[in-house]
Structures are given as structure tokens and as C-alpha cells.
């Protein structure tokens, strides 16, 4: 009897082990009943009855790795527009979205229909051939009202792959209670102010910045005419203008604490720094800290060469998976048209202080009167979209290494640039 039970248990264990390894069609949500996803049913959002809609609703799943309340805002705005057509959008948060898309992006059964993410990863996904060109689904007129900067960011080789929703860029954020006088109009004036008002040993700073992070040094690099990656995917870290920018940034870095995100935001929020160079994502934390916030555009500050500071901008947009475009093309086209509407931009601006990609959204008085959004839009005049070529994926490491070596380890900028350029070329070669 004991032997029988032991044998039976062994067989059961084997069967259950193998069963657990069987393929599931649902890695965490099939779009119909997502766990933890952001669903806004057309019924509740639109207030319409079941009878007025088509019998079958096409559920479209959008993966994201952003703020869930923003996604809820988008869903709440778009779903009522789509209700009559029997289309419903569902947002699902996926931490490590880039890796998730590498795994499931080409998988019609388990992957999303669309994704919402920053544009700098676009080249990677296009190279993997998991995205469908938007022009396969909708007319170019859908994004005709979008700011040119945001449209350009969504293109690879002239083909539009990303529908821009909102964008962000660096700003000069200052504490009105601590900052003395006007905001400088040149970087040299800014430096003089920093020298006069910084006491590193006491831990009080005039300006703090993530001085060894590519994104935060981009205003200098672009302003000097340097570049991290050109349109053909060639790195430009040892370009003389890039080196000049890195050298110029070095003297500012010496007065900007250690450049760590946590450090600089804490210093500013605790009133130990009068200003911070940062993005709109810092604003909620700053306001929660009770700081009387002033906002200025980096575009209004000129370098010694006469050029304005030109920060990178990151565009958040919607990409369509190729597999979904083939099977749900009509529903996705309707969703894209709704997502491109100015109402989405207005809702995002009101809910999260996001700068809409759609220029028509700025006609709304609440949007146009928002100080932060106005500064972002103004900065868009000189800002440059982050490079979106696939090679950009491996560029952040070498650039940040170079900046940290110069700013924190005192390495010569030219030497660090040559080493970083070699590392970048090797990393790009390794991609092939």
C-alpha cells in the first residue's frame, strides 16, 4: 500500500511539474481582464448604455511603464470617444517595459497591441521589426497638428512609428525665496552667481544639476554644436565641440554637489540649493515640499558662443505592434485618431502638468496659462529630441562614464572622450 502511494505521488509530482511548465496564453493579462491594469470602461466613462454600442467590443491593450494615474487619464478621455465604435483601450503597467517588449513584442498571443514609452527606444524596436509604421493604419493628417519636434522624434528613416502624446525637457527651476535677483541670461553670469552663492563645505548651493548624466549635460553639448549620436548612428563623443562642452560643464559641476539624482533633488527640496536643472517630473515633489517655485526656460540662457542652451527632449508616444496591426488594424486606427486629439493633450496637461504634443491643446486657457508647460513649450524652440537610432541603446553608458570620469574623478576631458568614443564604437559593433 505504501509503495503504491509513493509511486502515485511520484507520478502526480511529475505530471504537475510538467503541467506547470506548459505554455500559458496569458503572461499577466490578455487584455480582457488585466490584473492591476488601468481600465476605463466605455460604459462608466462615457455614461452611455450597453444598447447603443456594437455587440462586440475590441479590447486594445497598451503596455506602459509610466505613471498609472496619467494612463487612467488617457483611458478616461479616449474610451468615450471610441465607445460607439466598439473599441476599448486598456493600459497595463509593465516594469522594465523595454525588456518586456523584447520578449513579447512580436508575440501576437501574449504581447500588447500598442505601447506607450519614450521615443529614444524607438530605433531598437524598429530594428527588431516588431513595430508597424503608423501610415499603414492612419493618414499623416492624424499628427498634422503636433509640434514638429515631437513628430520628428517618432520617425526612423522618415517613417512614422510613434504617435506623440506629450513631451518633456529640462527646465531651470528655482526657489523664489532663495534666488536673488533676475535669472541670468548667459551661462557666464550664471557661473558668477554660482561662485558667489555656493558653499560646498556647508552644503549650500546656488544651482544643482545631475552634472554627470548625459541627459542633463545635453544643453551644453547641443549648445556647443557637439553630439552624442548623429542621424547615421555614429557616436560623436570625441568631436572637438563635444569635448569643449564637457570641459565647459566641468566648472559648473564642481559647484553642483555630486550630481546624484537623490542628492540634488533632496538639496533643492530641503532649501539647500536655490535652483535645480531638472524636468517637469520634479515639480510635484517640489510643490509638496512647500517651495515657492519659479520656472525659467534654458533656451533663454546663452553660452559664450552665443548659442542658447539646447537640452534634449523626451517624447512619450504610442507605438503599434506589427502583429496587432495585422489583426486589429481598424480598431487601432480608430484608437490612434482618438489618442491624437487635442482633448488628450489637455487632459494630460491638467492631470499631470504634461506638455501636449498637439499644438491645438495649447489653445485651451488652462494649458496655455500653466507656467511649467509654457516653459517646456518655449524650450522646444531650441530643444533637440534625444537620438532615437537603435545605437542610442548602448550610448548612455559610455557618455555617462565619460562625464563621471571628468567631473568626479578629475580625468582630462579629451582623454576621457577618446576612451568613451572607443567604448561606444565597440558597443555599437557588438550590437551587430
Amino acid at each position, binding site marked *: 500500500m505504501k509503495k503504491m502511494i*509513493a*509511486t502515485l505521488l*511520484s507520478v502526480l*509530482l*511529475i505530471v504537475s*511539474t*510538467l503541467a506547470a*511548465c506548459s505554455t500559458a496564453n496569458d503572461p499577466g493579462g490578455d487584455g480582457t481582464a488585466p490584473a492591476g491594469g488601468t481600465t476605463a470602461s466605455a460604459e462608466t466613462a462615457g455614461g452611455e448604455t450597453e444598447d447603443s454600442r456594437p455587440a462586440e467590443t475590441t479590447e486594445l491593450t497598451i503596455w506602459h511603464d509610466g505613471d498609472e494615474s496619467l494612463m487612467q487619464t488617457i483611458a478616461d478621455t479616449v474610451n468615450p470617444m471610441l465607445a460607439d465604435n466598439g473599441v476599448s483601450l486598456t493600459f497595463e503597467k509593465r516594469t522594465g517595459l523595454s525588456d518586456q517588449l*523584447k520578449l513579447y513584442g*512580436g508575440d501576437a498571443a501574449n504581447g500588447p497591441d500598442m505601447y506607450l514609452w519614450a521615443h529614444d527606444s524607438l530605433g*531598437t524596436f524598429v*530594428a*527588431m*521589426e*516588431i513595430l508597424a509604421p503608423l501610415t499603414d493604419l492612419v493618414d499623416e493628417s492624424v499628427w498634422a497638428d503636433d509640434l514638429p519636434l515631437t513628430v520628428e522624434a517618432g520617425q526612423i528613416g522618415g517613417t512614422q512609428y510613434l504617435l506623440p502624446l506629450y513631451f518633456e525637457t529640462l527646465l531651470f527651476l528655482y526657489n523664489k525665496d532663495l534666488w536673488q535677483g533676475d535669472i541670468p541670461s548667459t551661462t557666464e553670469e550664471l557661473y558668477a552667481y554660482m561662485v558667489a552663492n555656493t558653499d*560646498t*563645505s556647508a*552644503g549650500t548651493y546656488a544651482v544643482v544639476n*545631475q552634472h*554627470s*548624466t548625459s541627459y542633463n549635460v545635453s544643453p551644453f553639448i547641443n549648445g556647443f554644436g557637439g553630439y552624442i549620436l548623429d542621424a547615421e548612428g555614429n557616436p560623436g563623443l570625441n568631436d572637438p565641440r563635444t569635448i569643449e562642452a564637457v570641459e565647459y560643464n566641468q566648472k559648473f559641476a564642481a559647484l553642483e*554637489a*555630486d550630481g*546624484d*539624482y*537623490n*542628492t540634488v533633488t*533632496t*538639496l533643492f527640496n530641503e532649501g*539647500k540649493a536655490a535652483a535645480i536643472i531638472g524636468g517637469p517630473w520634479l515639480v510635484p515633489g517640489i510643490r509638496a515640499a512647500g517651495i515657492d517655485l519659479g520656472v525659467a526656460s534654458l533656451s533663454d540662457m546663452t553660452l559664450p558662443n552665443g548659442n542658447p542652451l539646447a537640452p534634449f527632449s523626451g517624447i512619450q508616444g504610442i507605438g503599434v505592434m506589427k502583429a496587432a496591426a495585422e489583426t486589429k488594424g481598424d480598431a487601432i486606427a480608430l484608437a490612434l485618431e482618438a489618442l491624437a486629439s487635442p482633448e488628450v493633450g489637455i487632459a494630460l496637461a491638467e492631470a499631470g502638468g504634461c506638455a501636449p504634443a498637439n499644438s491645438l491643446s495649447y489653445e485651451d486657457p488652462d494649458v496655455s496659462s500653466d507656467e511649467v508647460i509654457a516653459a517646456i513649450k518655449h524650450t522646444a524652440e531650441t530643444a533637440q529630441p534625444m537620438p532615437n537610432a*537603435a545605437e542610442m*541603446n*548602448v550610448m*548612455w*553608458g559610455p557618455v*555617462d*562614464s565619460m*562625464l*563621471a*570620469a571628468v*567631473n*568626479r*574623478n578629475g*580625468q582630462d576631458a579629451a582623454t576621457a572622450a577618446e576612451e568613451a568614443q572607443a567604448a561606444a564604437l*565597440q*558597443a555599437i559593433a*557588438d*550590437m*551587430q
Partner: protein
Amino acid sequence: MFRRRAKPWCYCAPALILILIIIVFPIAYTGYISLTNMNLYHWQAYEVIGLDNYARALFKLDSGFMSALGTTLLWTVLNMVIQLVFGFLIALGLNAPKLKLRRLYKTLLMVPWAMPAYISILLWRVGMFNTELGLLNKWLTALGFEKIDFLASNGIAFVSCIALNLWMALPFMISTIDGALQSIDRSLYESAQLDGAGFWTQAWKITIPSIRPVVAPAAVMTTFITFKQFDIIYLLTQQRGYMTGATLNTVITYVHQNAFASNNYGLSSAVSMLLFVIIIIFSFLTNRSLREG
């Protein structure tokens, strides 16, 4: 006869299948991928390209790799020596006959081990080493010294990483040695004391030989964990957005930096397989020395 032979296999089958699925299959699949050109540009339609990736992976074992290997060996040896010595001394202290509140001390010593590594590392990065917010720099400035960037250059970053690793790893070594110490027959010490043996003689002649069978496997295990340590050095000095300027690399961080960041899975797999072979050889050598010892 067949049934008698088959029965043990049948009982072991569930565990064997599990091992096959979660250990053997991933290694075999990595081996297969290492023979293909799977990368961003051949994500779905990749094909077998033979040993090309191995040729490129061997190229990766360049001077940078050798330097990283040297750092890894130094890192492993220093960590193990310090862990064993400090672990032994602290465990001896915890077993001192007249020690009060020993349970409280033992519980407190376990705290670093109980904390998730990621949290511990971030806590140390900001709470201890940070130039503005870190405790160490607060003390330094309070004493009138200049601030020190503990993670900016290789030498001091290496020492900082070792300090953190000790904080995280010592509890395991202490608890293992402590457990081994409890199993030693007290009468051996009483006899030794009657024979006039002092503390160090007792430790050398009785304690160490007695705990060796228990501590040796734990030490071997910790050696491997330390050898392939990734998170401490990566999160303290290399995390994207938080680079400190130190160019410290162990074998694993070097390989991550040079192969895994490229999204070239064929190449990364080939490098992984080579590392796998290196670790297997290391394991054989360690096991042999353990048996011979």
C-alpha cells in the same frame, strides 16, 4: 530486477525533471543561442552561425578582462579572508561563557543579512557614502575635515565596496561558525585547560579542526558568491544615471558592460558559456583542494 532498479529513479524523477527544466535546459539553451546570430537585427529570424560568437567572445578576454579578473581575484580573496577571520572572532565572542544578552546580539547581527541586497546597497550609497547626505561625510565635516567622495576613484571605491560586502555577508559566516562552535564537545576544552593549553592553542588545536567540516562548505559557497558578485559594484559605482567615475570592474560587471548591454544575445551567450566553463574549472579545483585538505 528491473522494478527494483527503476523504483529509485521513479522516486527521484520529479526532482530530476525539475532540475532538468530549471537548471539544465537554460544552460543548454544558452549554449544553443551562443551558436546563433540572435541580436537586435536578427531578433526573430536568427540562424546558426557556428563558433563565430566564441571567436568574438575570446577577443573580449582582452587586457580589460584580465584586469577585471585580477580585481575579481583580489576582491574574492580579501573578502573571504576578512569574512573568515572576523566571522570566527565574532562567533567566538558570541560564545564566550559569561556573555549576557547573546541572543539579542545574534538577532541584531542577522539584520543586514535579512535585508534585501538592493535596499542595503542603496541605503549605503546614499546614507553612508554620499558626499552631502552620507553619515561618513557628516562626521568628517563635523570634525573639520574635507568631504570625501567615497566612490569616485578606484582605490577608495574598492574599499567602500568591501566594507559593504562585509556588512552584508558577515552574518552568514558568523551564524555558520556559531552553529559549528555549538557542536564542539566542551569536555575537549576542559581537558586542554587541564593540560595547560591557552586560548590560542585551544583555538588552533581544537576549535578550528572541529568546525572545519562545517565551515569549509560554507566558505566554498561564499567564495563563489563573492567571485560572481555583481550587484554591489554595479549599483554603487556603475548604475545608469549614478556613475561615480570609478572604473572598477569584476569579471561579471566587465562582461555585463561589454556584452550584455549590446542586446547581442548570441555574443552574450557565448561569453556566458565561457564564464560557465571558467567557474566549473574553478569549482573542480576548489572541491579537489577541499578533499585533499
